[in-house]
């Protein structure tokens, strides 16, 4: 009798463990597959590459592209996005800074040459990057212009799209 009672207790204990394991598996599967793939880092890198390709030609900075009022059209870019969760072409931000550059003194002062897209993304980037916040990326590049003058550019890109990436 005593042995059978112990067996029953072990069975209940065994099922309790099974349920715990199952609950842990379900939680892990949901947390892994329930989360969207976050591709904003790759998007931000592609966007910076595209901007760098557009403002330079074989390492020669094309200063006139930075003064253009139709930068997006000239560089074959569009910040239009799908109709989702109230998005309205406001999910991407890009800013290009042009800086003085000297080999002996390094990078000098920068001026913001172009702001493209939703500027609110930049203030969110000051708080955090990735996750619930926009993914933000900064990259410096070095060029000479047609007159052999040295320049560096700082390109800042922020991609929001949090609802589909986090």
């Amino acid at each position, binding site marked *: 009798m005593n042995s059978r009672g112990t*067996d029953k207790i072990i069975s209940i204990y065994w099922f309790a463990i099974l349920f715990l394991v199952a609950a842990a598996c379900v939680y892990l*599967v949901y947390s892994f597959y329930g989360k969207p793939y976050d591709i904003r880092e790759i*998007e931000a890198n*592609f966007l910076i590459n*595209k901007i760098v390709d557009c403002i330079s030609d074989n390492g020669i900075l094309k200063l006139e592209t930075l003064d253009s009022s139709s930068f997006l059209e000239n560089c*074959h870019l569009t910040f239009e*996005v799908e109709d989702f969760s109230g998005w309205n072409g406001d999910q991407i931000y890009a800013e290009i800074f042009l800086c003085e550059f000297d080999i002996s003194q390094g990078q000098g002062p920068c001026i913001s040459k172009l702001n493209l897209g939703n500027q609110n993304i930049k203030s969110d980037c000051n708080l955090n990057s990735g996750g619930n916040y926009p993914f933000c990326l900064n990259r410096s590049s070095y060029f000479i212009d047609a007159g052999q003058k040295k320049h560096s550019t700082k390109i800042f890109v922020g991609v929001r799209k949090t609802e589909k990436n986090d």
Partner: protein
Amino acid sequence: MQKRGNILTENIIFIILNLVFVVILVLFIFSRMSGEGVLEEKYAKQIALIVDGAKPVMEIHLNMQDAVEKAKSNGIAPENIASISENIVNVKINSRGEGYDYSFFNNVDATIYFDMTSDFTYIIKINGNKK
């Protein structure tokens, strides 16, 4: 003898219940892994990234075997799985719902079509920059 018979029955029921439990758990995990929503999102984002990184006159071949098999089982023709409209990629594997949309920022004239000469391949063609 009676006691022995009871123990055997209890053990068999216990083992069967355990097996049922494990099978249900494994089926659940596999159904989530190859879920239609996951595949739609994966391919929509993959195609959007391919277009973002591509340059005019490139032609990219993408194997979408798992999506094509799933779509066929849901009654969707392979040529209707992926489409590009303006700068938005749509992938639809389930006959219910609108599929999954994702936008790309590269302002190019891109087309996507199912390669009829293969069983599972889609071709993404970057025809040129948009005017």
